[in-house]
């Protein structure tokens, strides 16, 4: 290529570049909307609340369950009543009982007598009177 041709081609190239620089790009329909939708989606993803809120202070699972249980049965006052009853039961079981009345012995021994069980005298009232007489 001779020098004159090169110069002319250079000039042509510069004009083509200039035309290209001035070219206004028409955005295809929908492209800007898609770009903005992407921006909104990214924003929403960043600002969405976490699935589970983090606890404000560290609390063990056992303490959480204990707190819920206490609340269900009426709080620490109810627990103190339960504790007293439990201690009394343990003490009675450990110390045993002293002399029992005859009625109590009959009840605990399983021996059934008319004198013990028939508490509503009806037709057997005379038999009851007779038995009582024998008992004495």
């Amino acid at each position, binding site marked *: 290529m001779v020098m004159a041709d090169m110069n002319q081609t250079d*000039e042509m*190239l510069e004009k083509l570049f200039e035309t290209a*620089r001035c070219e206004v*790009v028409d955005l295809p329909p929908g*492209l*800007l909307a898609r770009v*903005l939708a992407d921006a909104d989606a990214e924003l929403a993803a960043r600002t969405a609340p976490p699935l589970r809120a983090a606890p404000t202070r560290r609390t063990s699972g056992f303490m959480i369950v204990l707190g819920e249980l206490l609340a269900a049965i009426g709080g620490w006052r109810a627990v103190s009543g339960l504790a007293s009853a439990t201690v009394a039961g343990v003490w009675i079981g450990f110390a045993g009982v002293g002399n029992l009345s005859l009625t109590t012995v009959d009840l605990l021994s399983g021996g059934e007598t008319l004198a013990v069980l028939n508490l509503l005298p009806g037709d057997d009232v005379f038999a009851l009177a007779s038995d009582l007489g024998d008992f004495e």
Partner: protein
Amino acid sequence: MAFDANSQASDEVLLVLYGNGDRAAAHVLALRFTPLALRVAARMLGDGSEAEDVAQEAMLRLWRIAPEWRQGEARVSTWLYRVVSNLCTDRLRRRRGVGLDEIAEPEDGVPPVVDRMIARDRANALQDALDALPERQRQAVVLRHIEGLTNPEIAAVMQIGVEAVESLTARGKRALTALLAAQREELGYGHG
């Protein structure tokens, strides 16, 4: 804070605002940079549909980087040029993997670039010549002569030295001259 398309706020300020949750800032950024991304991608790829995909993907990456953007480290436009260039390079490399059977056969006896230029206007002639350049030369030429970036800016975009940019643009321009010389008259520049 509301913005219109002619907002005087800098690109960086707008990006930081968007990163902090300002939707209006995204609107201005989209109006400013989507055309840029589309224009560069179209020049690099020579395919409008692919360029559209690249522009959307590049803007999506801009939205994602916004919360981590550090002011003063880079210009938003430089960053976006780089992302678009890289996305285009990836696509061009994938194209090279296309099988030979899928490439259109050139018409007998007529150089394909000349044959196409007969029916196309000057802008398309330039695009055809750009398409014929190696991708790095094309990238440098587009950024220098069409986008108007300085050599240091191109060096930042392409992550190479300024001297390498000068070499790429010089070789690219020489190649374009050679490619277009034969079509000077056909394009209406034959008589100086």
